[in-house]
């Protein structure tokens, strides 16, 4: 990519990203949203988190992988249990990362 193309790339990406984020924020607040819609929006955080997590754990290689050699799935389960027991986000990240790296080393040693 030439530096001129890069310039237009950054400009275009900046415009569309801000164009998605800001107008809704600016306009929607001016209207009274239906109560049902407001209630429904409470489900956005868990839904979007799951929609990001599920493919990352279940199909790290692009297709569904339920095998024990899938370190993403195994460490994901360990992280989930840690979070459930402790409700501690930082601890969950640390335990999950260690579990992930350890699982890969173990599987690698067996293979």
């Amino acid at each position: 990519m030439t530096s001129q193309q890069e310039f237009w790339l950054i400009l275009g990406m900046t415009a569309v990203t801000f164009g998605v984020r800001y107008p809704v924020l600016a306009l929607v607040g001016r209207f009274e949203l239906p109560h049902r819609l407001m209630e429904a929006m409470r489900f956005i955080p868990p839904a979007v988190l799951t929609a990001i997590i599920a493919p990352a754990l279940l199909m790290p290689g692009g297709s569904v992988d339920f095998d024990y050699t899938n370190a993403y799935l195994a460490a994901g389960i360990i992280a989930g249990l840690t979070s459930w027991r402790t409700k501690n986000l930082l601890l969950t990240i640390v335990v999950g990362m260690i579990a992930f790296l350890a699982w890969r080393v173990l599987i690698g040693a067996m293979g």
Partner: protein
Amino acid sequence: MPHASSATTEHSRSANRAQEFRRGVRATFPLVVGAIPFGIIFGAVAVNGGLSPQATMAMSLFVFAGSAQFVAAGLAAAGAGVAIIVLTTFVVNLRHALYAASLAPHMKHLPQRWLALLGFWLTDESYLVVIDRYAQADDSRDKHWFFLGSALFMYTNWQLCTYIGIRAGQAIADPASWGLDFALPVTFIGMLVPMLRSRPVVACVLVAGVSAVLFHSLPNQLGLIIATLLGVATGALLQKRKAKA
């Protein structure tokens, strides 16, 4: 009485803002930790894929959208044109419209300059901690300072990590082999699990998860948006039935 207390009120207002700001920073800390590898990998992948260090840094400074930046770097490396990448960025970022719609009712009282600034700094991470803050019942009028603290922390960290990634460059050419690509999902697991407190939420999560896997092959993360909407619809329907019963 009103005269005597106005100075104190003004003082406590600014103290409250500073406190909100600090709380926003603190609540975002674990998410910043999770975003560190993500930012470093972005910097490394982008320059390895042929973007100049200047363009890579500019993308983090001006676009500030993690997953869209990743997709853009990948497309640029594959030789895609500017128009295609910009269009893809738009689609990948569509979920931010959902975030904005859910935040907007809480932010009606803010002037446009605040909305523009916080809109620019809206990310998955800040959305998640900020909407949680807005959901708390206390009547603080300064929750946008919490947002500001969260957003500035995420933004500063993203710039630093991009810079480190650019410098590290070739050293981490294959991030998956380092296991750093697990940092983001594990962070999100730690946020998700404590939310699973009611049947509608659990149903929402099951539907969103299965749909996300089923629709994963759709281009431009459209599957992510479809899965989110299906999950939200499921949760909302069950919630309504529960309310009626």
